[in-house]
């Protein structure tokens, strides 16, 4: 447990967070690993975890008829999964490990419960999630703009 608390505390996502909170969060955490090619989660499944990557790389994918489109890859020190934050808590896409990936898996129900009990903790977490969500929204806009297209 002590090891997990240290791992949580040292992950860049929690940089600067009070020990009191990282200790609480570590109570919802466990270490996981995914082999190359293994799915982290599938579209439509309950979003009952989210992942802080420690090493490796994960592809976020959408399956279309006869092809699988990779929308984004996420690497070391980054997070995978935001659907656990908002109802109906279901994954909007697939996530697949591209290489051996080590991560901290967070139990979403446990974390949501702790945030309900202590809104300051919830706010601390939101402050960390929101910039990532905004960056990803911005990136999606750029993807839609297709800046390398023939008429850019």
């Amino acid at each position, binding site marked *: 447990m002590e090891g997990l608390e240290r791992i949580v505390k040292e992950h860049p996502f929690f940089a600067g967070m009070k020990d009191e909170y990282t200790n609480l969060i570590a109570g919802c955490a466990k270490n996981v690993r995914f082999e190359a090619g293994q799915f982290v989660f599938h579209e439509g499944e309950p979003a009952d975890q989210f992942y802080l990557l420690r090493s490796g790389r994960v592809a976020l994918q959408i399956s279309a008829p006869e092809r*699988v489109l990779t929308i984004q890859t996420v690497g070391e020190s980054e997070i995978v999964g935001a659907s656990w934050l908002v109802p109906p808590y279901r994954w909007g896409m697939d996530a697949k490990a591209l290489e051996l990936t080590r991560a901290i898996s967070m139990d979403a129900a446990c974390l949501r419960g702790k945030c309900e009990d202590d809104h300051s903790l919830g706010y601390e977490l939101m402050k960390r999630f929101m910039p990532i969500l905004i960056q990803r929204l911005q990136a999606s806009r750029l*993807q839609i703009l*297709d800046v*390398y297209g023939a008429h*850019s």
Partner: protein
Amino acid sequence: MALTAETPRIVADPMVPRVGRIRKRVRELSDVWTLTVEMDEPFAFAPGQFNMLTAFGVGEAAISISGDPARPGEGLIHTIRDVGPVSHALSHLEPGDYIGVRGPYGAGWPVEVAEHCDVVILAGGLGLAPLRPLIYEVLSGRKKYGKVALLFGARTPTDLLFRPELEQWRRRLDVDIHVTVDTSTEDWYGNVGVVTTLVPRAAFDPQHTIAYVCGPEIMMRFGAAALRDKGVPDEAMYLSMERNMKCGIGLCGHCQIGTVFVCRDGPVFRNDKLRPLMSVKEL
């Protein structure tokens, strides 16, 4: 006979192209070719400069030089994307064909300002071509710089320019290379995401970094913003602008943005100078 004020002199007309011959034509991507041009005389240029290339009977276009300034014997190298009549005609010239060349023009990448600093080269799509001479120069004088990062984004894996060379650079242990594509299918194991997502992943000291950015204008704007978010000041970023050009030498005004002529004052600009010009919506 001594020259007097009245003595007629033959002055080379800057609007008349020199004639070169295509030595080699290589297909890089489905719509992009690299031409090697043989010139009669040595052709010196600085990284980031461009030439006005003429496809005789069709027209002229500004094209950056994409070869190595330290290896003039290689010929004059340009990488061209077939987007319209002139670029189509140029990119379809065959070995032995004639081509018109005016240049080199413009202010290129200031390489010397990066000495003793970290270097970030941020390229999008065909923007890697004008940056390649700079990359050659930085790599050949590698010891003069701190960390060197090359961040390159393209639309899909099949749109990655100079892929064999990227792989060669990646094998060096002294360059941090990150490549990404906007979207891909499952057969690509590299990064997926827009090029701006690479900026936080690269290792460099933002306060002691010089960044060189080239690509489509929107990509450069967001790329510069990502660098700024990481702490690189506008004074340490250089961007290469593309504007329609006619004369290439500051005479016609075709390439004007606000008070500057891209052909003469650029195409490479420091971002603190460029940003106020670009924020004017109606030019």
